[in-house]
């Protein structure tokens, strides 16, 4: 356990070294936040209470998206490329030989990265958005606690999906195609492009039960108090379900994949 904490801590520090890159990221998140916020204003001006949000809730949704974008790797990125490169070059054999669990190792690293991005690239865009627009903030500390829990569960689900995607490199060698497809699905079905509650009819119903909604839509709804009482428990249980199911699937694929690793050379 201490080992994984150290891995997470080092990963946090590794990302914290790139200060200019973090500032650049905050700038980009803020620019996009402004662009999307104006389009939402145009939309909610004509359809107040669209998707169950009022104007300030819709705007908060936008800025929550920008704040969680890097942490939850909603546009992809983070560890997949690195892991896929290790699989392609065969370095993965060395990793498998180490007395650590491969999945937990990468999970710890990813949580460290997410933790840094949450602070480094999450807080400031949200504050800037709050200065420029009238945002909706929950008053109850219980909601804030539930939100943080929900974000953590969302990060777990996000990791589990990306880990599965990275493992496809064992079969495909070059995983960039699958990685790209998975980032797209994530971007669209997490609610990042448009809240899933605005998706019409059957498409919306399907989108809301897919794992990607656990990554962003659910935490955002917890923040906006769209889930209360038992609804809140149900929303969190939904996230726990996907996290466990996908982490277990990742484990199964991992053991199938490692059985086919052939170590070359002597």
């Amino acid at each position, binding site marked *: 356990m201490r080992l994984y904490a150290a891995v997470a801590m080092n990963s946090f520090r590794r990302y914290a070294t*790139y200060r*200019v*890159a973090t*500032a*650049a*990221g905050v*700038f*980009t998140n803020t*620019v*996009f936040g*402004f*662009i*999307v916020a*104006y*389009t939402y*204003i*145009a*939309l909610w001006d*004509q*359809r107040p209470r*669209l998707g169950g949000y009022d104007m300030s809730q819709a705007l908060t949704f936008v800025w929550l998206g920008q704040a969680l974008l890097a942490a939850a790797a909603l546009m992809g990125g983070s560890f997949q490329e690195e892991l896929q490169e290790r699989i392609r070059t065969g370095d993965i054999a060395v990793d498998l030989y180490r007395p650590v669990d491969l999945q937990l190792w990468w999970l710890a690293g990813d949580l460290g990265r997410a933790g840094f991005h949450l602070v480094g690239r999450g807080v400031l865009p949200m504050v800037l958005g709050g200065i420029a627009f009238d945002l909706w903030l929950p008053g109850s500390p219980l909601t804030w606690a539930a939100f943080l829990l929900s974000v953590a569960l969302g990060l777990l689900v996000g990791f589990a999906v990306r880990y599965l995607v990275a493992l496809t490199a064992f079969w*495909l*060698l*070059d*995983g*960039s*195609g*699958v990685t*790209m*497809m998975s980032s*797209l699905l994530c*971007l*669209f079905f997490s609610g990042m*492009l*448009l809240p899933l509650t*605005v*998706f*019409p009819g059957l498409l919306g119903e399907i989108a809301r039960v897919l794992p990607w909604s656990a990554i962003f839509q659910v935490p955002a709804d917890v923040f906006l108090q769209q889930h209360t009482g038992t609804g809140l428990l149900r929303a969190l249980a939904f996230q726990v379900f996907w996290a466990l199911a996908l982490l277990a699937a990742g484990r199964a694929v991992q053991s199938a994949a490692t059985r086919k690793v052939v170590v070359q050379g002597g």
Partner: protein
Amino acid sequence: MWVRSTMAYRASFLMVTVGNFAATVLDFAAITLMFSHVDTLGGFSLAEVAFLYGTTSTAFGVADLVLGSMERVGRRVRDGTMDTLLVRPVPILAQVAADRFALRRLGRISQGLLVLVWSLTAVDVAWTWDRVLLLPVMLLSGSAIFGAVFVAGAAFQFWANDAAEVQNSVTYGGNTLLQYPPTVFATELLRGVTFVVPLAFVNWLPALHILGRPDPLGLPGWVDFASPVVAVALCTLAGLAWRAGLRSYRSTGS
């Protein structure tokens, strides 16, 4: 070379190309989802928004295909591989542009063109000769303007070598911005993208003329035709910035 190397992993190449196509499709899908709730956005119909979307995506796609690799300059400065390019007898700009030249980016252009063609059949425009002529001029100057931004951004990375994201906010951010009608945005923002980073010349100003819409900033009418001039001026500035950046380059060494 890079074309052949990406072809080595055929399944992946296919998926990335389809992915590039799908990425932009999903962008447009989000806009159509918005229009499933409203008839107009900022006073513009779906066909008109599609026209804006198609023109900026095509222009951005062309610039991205030719110069999209420029965002790697920061990494090259950081890890010192820039030196390899300096000793070769080929213009450095051409080398950086050809680095990992990715045909898969064709996906973005084709989707932009598809939306553009659809919008042309759906939009209600009185096609006078100046409007017909303005369309190709707009696409060409738009590509050149985005191209200049790519080069200027790369030049900036000689100084701030891990700030590739700032460039993304202008390129990808600009592309997203121009997909929506200018009436949606605050006037300060419009002034910014007209006078500071003149992205409005990529498609907003000429497109407003084609669609017969007044311009929300109330600029004189000839501005709608100024895109080629702006494009040439920006490319010159970007070229100068690139040379200045290159001259100030110091290898990282060890």
